């Protein structure tokens, strides 16, 4: 997604004569948006469909979406924190925790599902609030503070469920992974709703403040931005997204596992970086990270259908990650050189 600052640049700026209104390089616009990662995704999907014609039927698409949704939502939450110039490791803890809660206390029916959703959001929000308090108010380094909360959440998850098991309610497991009218994957819809919300949030004062504190915290503070509240809210919102990711993960695996969040920890950062969001804050967007997550998931499929030896899939993933980040960085730099 485009940087908020440039979102307006295409607006009414009447001329390029004015100082500062340097004409934006088209490439630059591309990198600021999710253009690059979107392009990569389409390319990979074409490749995948070429190798595996069944990739285009609605079941396969839904399965891919189901597979993508947890990482996409986790990466979305991580993006918020990264935009505010932070790192959130608690992602692994929150997802594990919501997963075991859903598996140990399944609530049947649509009403139960709604309640489960609220529980997930509450768990994520609560952990996020603790993170936010530690980072924004007690001024701990985010990576260190969230490391501690991650360990604690993992511990709580193990206390609730000490071995994989339990069953997520059927309604969640079936409906959230199903298709509406046999076509539209529900998991995709959930991700779309999150993206839609993000597009709205980006246009609020909070959204602007988020980018502001990520780029230059002292300046934002002196401009009247309430840095602590913004940072606090960011962790809470991120936590809620992890909770949602936990819900989608539970829907897909239909069971509880106290370690289920761990694999998503580093992947979420990879997805964020792949989406072109700057790890030093203030630049990037949530949609791009979602696409980054989708690309990572799709990459596995493509590597599988290409028949790459399983031993070496990591090699390809690593190389693609580096190349994509280098490429997006290059485009950004070319664009910034006016």
């Amino acid at each position: 997604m485009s940087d908020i600052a440039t979102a307006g640049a295409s607006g009414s700026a009447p001329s390029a004569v004015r100082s500062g209104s340097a004409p934006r390089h088209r490439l630059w616009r591309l990198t600021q948006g999710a253009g690059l990662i979107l392009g990569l995704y389409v390319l990979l999907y074409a490749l995948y469909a070429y190798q595996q014609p069944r990739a285009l039927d609605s079941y396969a698409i839904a399965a891919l979406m189901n597979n993508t949704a947890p990482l996409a939502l986790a990466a979305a939450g991580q993006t918020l924190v990264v935009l505010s110039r932070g790192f959130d490791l608690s992602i692994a803890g929150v997802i594990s925790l919501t997963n075991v809660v859903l598996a140990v206390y399944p609530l049947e029916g649509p009403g139960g599902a709604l309640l489960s959703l609220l529980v997930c959001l509450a768990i994520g929000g609560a952990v996020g609030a603790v993170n936010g308090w530690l980072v924004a108010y007690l001024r701990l380094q985010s990576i260190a503070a969230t490391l501690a909360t991650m360990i604690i959440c993992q511990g709580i998850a193990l206390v609730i469920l000490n071995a994989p098991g339990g069953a997520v309610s059927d309604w969640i497991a079936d409906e959230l992974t199903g298709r509406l009218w046999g076509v539209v994957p529900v998991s995709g819809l959930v991700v779309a709703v999150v993206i839609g919300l993000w597009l709205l949030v980006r246009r609020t004062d909070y959204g602007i403040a988020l980018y502001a504190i990520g780029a230059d915290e002292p300046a934002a503070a002196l401009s009247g931005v309430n840095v602590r509240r913004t940072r606090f809210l960011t962790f809470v919102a991120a936590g809620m997204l992890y909770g949602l990711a936990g819900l989608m993960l539970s829907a897909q695996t239909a069971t509880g596992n106290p370690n289920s969040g761990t694999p998503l920890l580093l992947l979420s950062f990879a997805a964020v970086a792949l989406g072109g969001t700057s790890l030093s804050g203030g630049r990037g967007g949530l949609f791009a990270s979602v696409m980054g997550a989708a690309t990572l998931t799709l990459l596995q499929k493509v590597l599988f259908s290409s028949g790459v030896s399983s031993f070496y899939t990591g090699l390809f993933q690593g190389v693609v990650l580096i190349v994509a980040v280098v490429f997006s960085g290059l485009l950004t730099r070319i664009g910034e050189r006016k």
Partner: protein
Amino acid sequence: MTVMNDNPISQARFQQKGDTRRSARVSAETVSTFAVAILCVVLLLGARFISPSLGSWSQVETVLVLGSFLVVLSFGQGLVILTGGLDLSLPAVATLGGILATNWVGASDPAAWYLLPLVLLACGCVGFLSAAGIVWLKVPPFIMTLAMSIIVSSLLLGYTKGTPRGAAPDIAVALMKGQVLGLPAPVLFLVAFVLLGWLFQSRSIYGRYLYAIGTNVEAARIAGAPVTAMRILPYVVSAVSAGFAGLMLVGYSSGATLRMGDSYLLPSIAAVVIGGSSILGGRGTFLGTVGGAILLTTLGTIISAIGLEFGLRTIIEGAIVLVALLLLREELFQKLGSLWR
């Protein structure tokens, strides 16, 4: 003339005329190092209440031996963090070191004297590649080392076909299992390593350059520091020390596995951070990091001894990390420091 910090809001720290003391920051680092050390001792002594055998010299030995891996790994991690980076490839490189040591060298190979350095060189090359990506291709360290980690693991998997072979080199076994002057060799080694690491980070010109770069790359470049070389250096040192830690692990458990380094990633970061370094770079000492590593290991030993279920132990571990972080906050030390003045 008065002394004043003109940094906005956050760190406004002023010193009035007639200063007689050293810089606040220097003492804050020293204090936090001491605090970590004191915390370790308190934990060890407190552990006696849990089991009478705890807090004994033999437990200290165990902690030092088990902690030595983490100390070596977090030395490299600390240097990378000092320059504002992060090395996520440590586990993979440690595994690389271990696997190569068992595969190339084996138990009693007379060629060990040149093969082992070659193993470390190979690890150093991985570090160099990471650094090259970071310095020249401008990939963020977090991503570059993550990708390197995935790549190295994958290559190792392919190289070993999933089955690590060979035995630990005799030298590595002697290092981890030997006795010198009645003391376990790894403890003596640890003392020597900490001394060297401290000399390197706090007393060598390279250490100074790293601090300078971690504080402000551009200013360091303008001041004429060899910036490129010094940005590469920590990754290479980190990879070599990770490789060495792999060698130590192999010597300790007489064999390599493909995931032998995995459990050290987060602890290596935690040790550095608990030791009072800033994750943003430019601040922190190796002695603090050593304290952090030993503290974490001590904690692990004691928690193992408590007969609690794993979940509760994990919660306690997390809580103690959190408490350590809260206690070691910089503001707290400034307050303490100002009381002492």
